[in-house]
C-alpha cells in the first residue's frame, strides 16, 4: 500500500475540476440569458455575479 493514494486523490481532483468547469459554463450561460432578457426589456442593470461568470468562462 503506497503512502499517498494517487489514483483516488487524482480522481477526486478531476471531479472537483469538472464540477467547477460545469458550474462556470452553466453559470455563464444562465447569466448571458438573464442579461439578454433584461436588455430586450430596456434594462441595463449590472449584476456582479453575472459579470463574474462571463468573465471567468472562456466559452462566453
Amino acid at each position, binding site marked *: 500500500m503506497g503512502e499517498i493514494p494517487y489514483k483516488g486523490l487524482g*480522481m477526486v481532483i478531476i471531479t472537483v475540476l469538472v464540477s467547477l468547469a460545469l458550474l462556470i459554463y452553466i453559470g455563464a450561460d444562465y447569466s448571458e440569458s438573464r442579461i439578454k432578457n433584461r436588455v430586450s426589456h430596456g434594462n441595463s442593470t449590472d449584476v456582479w455575479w453575472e459579470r463574474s461568470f462571463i468573465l471567468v468562462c472562456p466559452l462566453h
Partner: protein
Amino acid sequence: MPTSLIKKIDEKYHLRHFAWVIVIIASIIQMVGSTIRNVFGVMVDPMSETFGWSQGQIGLGYAIAALCTALFSPVSGIIGDLIGARKTMAIGTVLFLVGMVWTATASSIIEFYIAYGVVLGIAQSIYLVPIVPAVVSWFKRGTGIGTGAMMVAWSIGPALSIQALAICFEYFGWQNTFLIFGIFGSIIIAVCLLFFYDSPEKKSTLPYGWMSTDNKSEIKGILWNSKSQKLIFKTDSFWHLVNIHFWGCVGHAVILVAVIPMAVNQGISLVAASGVLSIIAIASIFSRFTAPIIGDKYGSKPIIFISFLGQGLSVLLLLNASTIFDFYLFAILFGLPYGGEGTVVPIINKQYYGRFPMGTTYGWQLFGAGIGMAIGGVIPGIVFDITGGYVFAIWVSALSSLWGALIVLMLSSTKEMIVEYST
C-alpha cells in the same frame, strides 16, 4: 403465518438474536429522521401563506439544510466513532427537538434558516451517519440482510411520514404539526436509544453469524484510533467511494427533482406524473433490500457497477419519453438500479476495512453524496431557465452515473481486506 414457517425462518435467521432489535431500532430512527427532509415539500405553501415568504426564500432553507447535512456528515461520523453511536444520536435527538420546536415558533426568515437549515440539517446528518456503521458492526455474517432490512426503511419511511404529515398539516396546522412531530419523534427515539447498544461487545454478546471457528481476538472490542483511520485514508478505494457517491447522487438528484416537470412538460397530468416518483420509490424498495444481500454474498463491486450503469443508461430513455407509459417504464428501469446504488456501500466498507469502526469513513462518503445531491438538485431548474428544456440535464445525469460506473471499475477487489491494522 403458520408456526412451522416462523420456526423455519427463526432457524435460518436466528430471529431472537439482539442484532435484529438493533436493525428495528435503526429503521425507526431512520424513519423519524427522514421526516426532516420530507416535511419540506408539504410545508412550503402553508409557510408562504403564514408569513408571505416567497417559495425561493423558503427553498433556500432546504438548500441550507442539505448543505449542513453534507458538511456535518464527516463530523457526525468522527463523533460517532469517538463517543459511540448511541451518545451521538442522543445529541442528535436534542438537536431534533430544539430544531422542530424552534421551526414551529420561528417568526423571521433568518430564524427559519437557523432552526430548519442549520439545527435540523445537523440533526439529520447525526441520524444518517453513525447508525449505519453501528448496525453493520452487529453482524459477523449476514450483513447484507441486516443492512438491506434497514435500508428499506429509507423508502418506506418517507412514504408513511409524508402522508402522516400531510394529514396533520390539514387538521392541526403546520406549526402544531412541527411541535407534535418534534416532541413525539424525540420521545420515540429516546425510548429506542434505551435499548440500543453500539456494538455486540458493549452488550457482552457475540455478533450475528459468529462461528466458533472465527478468530477470537475479534471478540474484544475494536476501538477507533487515528492510526488505523489514517491507513483507511491512504487507500485509493476510500477516495473512490467518496467520489462514486458524489457522481451517483448528482445522477439521481437531477432525475428526482426534474422527472415530474419533464412529464408535465410532455402534456401529462400532474397526478399521473406524480406516479413516476411513486413507482421509482416502490421499485427501489426491492433493490435496496436485495442489493446488500447480493453484494455481501458475491462481492459488492459488480453490484455497484451494474447499479451505476443501469442508472446512467435508463436515464437516456427520457430523451424520447412522451407518453405516460414511457415515463412509467423509465421509473421501473431507473428505480431498480437507483435503489441498489448506495445501499451496498456499508457492505463494501466492511469487505475492505473489516470490523474497524466505520463512522468517519461512512461520514466522508455521505459528505460526497450530500454535495452531489445539492449540485444535482439545482441543475435541472437552471438548465430549464436557459434552454427551455431538460435535454442537457438528462445528459448531465446520465454521464454522471456512467462516470461513476467507470470509477467503480477502479475499486480494489472485495475478496479480501485492503488494510492491515497493527495490533
